[in-house]
């Protein structure tokens, strides 16, 4: 009995999900919309793309997310944001992260270099007028950047997860560690631009919000081997934000 317990404990510590869902040439295109009283206004196009990156030592996976406002918005508030993470293709462990945001007249760039041996991240922040700031931050064992976290959600085994069960994630954003929680809310079939899909419905937020039943930030992932995000709903001060899949290419399965 004791041996079984030890073996189970060891297995639970060392068992780490491997990437069985994310392909190396995936391209997912989304429309980000603003919804007020059922009236939808398309604001921007969000693209999530993967590609292999070869260095002299290894081949890594580049996870890239871009957001660009539609042309009708460009004269009012132009957004050209880029987020990317260079990760281990098997486990999505991040090594390098870049964030380059251009929003109206606001500019900010952030670069993280992860050192998993020392559990530290070297960050370089650049703002307008080449205002550069270097800082080294300590991180936990499981801390990831926002991009690799988004892809990492797809590695969870929701098929064998109980409804209402949560998983914690630690995200490094703006050089601060933030705790997030993903709660599995069950399966739901929804209509999307790529057809009717059976999905895993997830709630994102802090533990307190979920306990209060405020599941206002929701994600729908296809309940197949690809587990791609097809729909997202986010609460914003006035109305709702929505993320809807527009097209998909290069899936692994």
């Amino acid at each position, binding site marked *: 009995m004791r041996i079984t317990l030890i073996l189970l404990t060891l297995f639970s510590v060392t068992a*780490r999900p491997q990437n069985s869902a994310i392909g190396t040439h995936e391209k997912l295109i989304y429309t980000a919309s603003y919804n007020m009283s059922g009236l939808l206004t398309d604001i921007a196009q969000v693209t999530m793309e993967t590609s292999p990156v070869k*260095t002299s030592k290894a081949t890594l996976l580049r996870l890239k997310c871009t957001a660009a406002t539609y042309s009708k918005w460009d004269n009012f508030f132009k957004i*050209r944001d880029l987020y990317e993470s260079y990760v281990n293709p098997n486990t999505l462990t991040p090594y390098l992260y870049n964030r380059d945001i251009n929003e109206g007249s606001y500019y900010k760039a952030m670069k993280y270099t992860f050192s*998993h041996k020392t559990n530290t991240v070297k960050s370089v922040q650049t703002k307008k007028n080449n205002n550069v700031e270097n800082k080294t931050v300590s991180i936990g064992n499981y801390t990831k950047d926002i991009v690799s976290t988004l892809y990492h959600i797809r590695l969870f085994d929701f098929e064998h997860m109980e409804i209402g069960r949560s998983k914690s994630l630690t995200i490094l954003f703006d050089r601060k560690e933030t705790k997030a929680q993903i709660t599995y809310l069950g399966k739901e079939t929804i209509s999307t631009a790529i057809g009717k899909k059976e999905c895993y419905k997830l709630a994102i937020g802090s533990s307190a919000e979920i306990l209060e039943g405020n599941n206002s930030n929701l994600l729908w992932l296809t309940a197949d081997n690809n587990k791609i995000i097809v729909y997202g709903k986010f609460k914003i001060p006035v109305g709702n934000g929505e993320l809807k899949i527009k097209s998909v290419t290069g899936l692994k399965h």
Partner: protein
Amino acid sequence: MKTVCTGLAIVCSVLTAIFAVLPLSNLAVIPALAALVFGLIAFYWSRKTGEVKKIIPFTFLLTGVALCFTIYKAVFTSTEVAETTALEAKESQLEEEAIEALEDIDLDLEDLEGLEDIDIEE
């Protein structure tokens, strides 16, 4: 009642016109409906007292024109992303810089296969 409704109808029809020319033109439907409702109430009360001010039909006209423009924009304006050259150039530049930086990072095979952390804290 008549004055209040007339005032609200004017405000709502002006809001409809403003929304109609903005990228948020879909939202013009909300003040347009309000303008029509307040306009009708004001019109009804004005007819009861026997005097219909010219401003009331004007609010109907303004709301109608703004709604037509909103519908035109919703039907004929395509949602597309333009001017992505700078973003694409940035993507290539960052990739080149990243490859250089990754050469300096301790990325041996052991690191790639061993330190695979997965955050599953339940």
